[in-house]
């Protein structure tokens, strides 16, 4: 009989349920309980870089907005450095929590535009935000990325975008640009289903 590999198994994921805001953004659930709510500022005022605003909606397979979703953002700073990986400006957290308007489902991300990040084997990745979505009915949090339409050259060389076999699906990861404002919709299923990653 062979030896056993005696590793533990990761705890199974469960849906965040309908009331994720109670736990992760109680102010948005309608009650103040903590001195500071986490994830309010992705990039503090001292963080250098271009200030950008991203708006969008998460929709389900019927086209309805998912108004109870919670999105976490994780990103590098304007030089392409993640907090913890190297020195970043004071107040740059790189991480934030975003919830949409309960009625319209529109979310807004305010941050600085990230720089290019080193990928595997020294290949540079185009600037991107890493997004993680949880909501009622989502059994395991969904990972995706948001790229910028005004980074055409970098996007064309991006090793992750280039992994997507169906070239038209790459567009699901690219936010429309309008100056320093971007628009990025996420579709959980349907014709324009966003590319989600197993990371």
């Amino acid at each position, binding site marked *: 009989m062979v030896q056993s590999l005696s590793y533990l198994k*990761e*705890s199974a*994921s469960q849906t*965040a349920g309908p009331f994720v805001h109670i736990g992760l953004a109680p102010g948005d659930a309608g009650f103040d309980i*903590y001195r500071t709510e986490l994830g309010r500022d992705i990039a503090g005022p001292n963080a250098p870089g271009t200030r950008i605003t991203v708006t969008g909606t998460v929709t389900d397979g019927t086209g*309805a907005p998912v108004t109870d979703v919670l999105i976490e953002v994780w990103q590098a700073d304007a030089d392409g450095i993640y907090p913890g*990986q190297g020195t970043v400006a004071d107040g740059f957290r790189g*991480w934030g929590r975003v919830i949409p308007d309960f009625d319209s489902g529109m979310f807004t991300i305010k941050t600085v535009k990230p720089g290019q990040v080193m990928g595997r084997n020294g290949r540079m990745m185009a600037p991107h935000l890493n997004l993680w979505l949880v909501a009622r*009915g989502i059994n395991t949090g969904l990972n995706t990325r948001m790229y910028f339409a005004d980074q055409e050259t970098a996007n064309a060389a991006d090793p992750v975008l280039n992994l997507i076999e169906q070239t038209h699906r790459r567009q699901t990861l690219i936010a429309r640009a309008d100056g320093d404002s971007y628009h990025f919709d996420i579709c959980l299923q349907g014709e324009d289903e966003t590319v989600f990653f*197993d990371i």
Partner: protein
Amino acid sequence: MTTKDLYQRDREWHPPALAPDYKTSVARAPRLALLSLESTASELTGPTFGHGDIDEIDNDLLRNYAKSGDPIGERIIVHGRILDENARPVPNTLVEIWQANAGGRYRHKKDMYLAAIDPNFGGCGRTLTNENGYYTFRTVKPGAYPWRNWVNNWRPAHIHISVFGTAFAQRLITQMYFEGDPLIAQCPIVRTIPDQRAIDQLVAALDLNATIPLDSIAYKFDIVLRGHRSTYFETRPEGN
């Protein structure tokens, strides 16, 4: 900073996105395959939190929202360790919980259940694991409640738990159930998990040794995050 790859997530151990008996998943499950990605700094780094972010009282749900007295319900301690798949403790990581009150009602304007709101219970807490990966909360045991799935579905008593770990790809939200609850085996959300061993791993054990006599009963609940893989440096595995 060294960024080591993680163990691959065992997708057959986790619930599938589409689980038709949990009706809400039907319109919210991606239908196309996930794209498997080799990790980069984007996945292997993650946010960190410190004691400046949270207060001492944040892990005490008996106190952190109390206005005029104690919350109603069975007083419990929930404690355990955050480990990775190599059984190493995960220190200084943020653990956040939320739950219904003892009557089974959440403090949320969209919760329409008939049970009363408890004026002294908010229903959320947070803490950092210590250097040994250990965490603890004080709270009340949440009540079971009915929910709109099939007409007569009841959620077993449960606490939602969110954990970070050291890498964005370790991010996990799960639920803790209570030993001996007959509703666990009936719940469509629990049953999205295909393997009974994975379900058992989400059931906290009654821990009489951690009770406070004449005060609070205790449950022990360990949580496992993805492990870091060995990296081979020349001919030698590093980091084991």
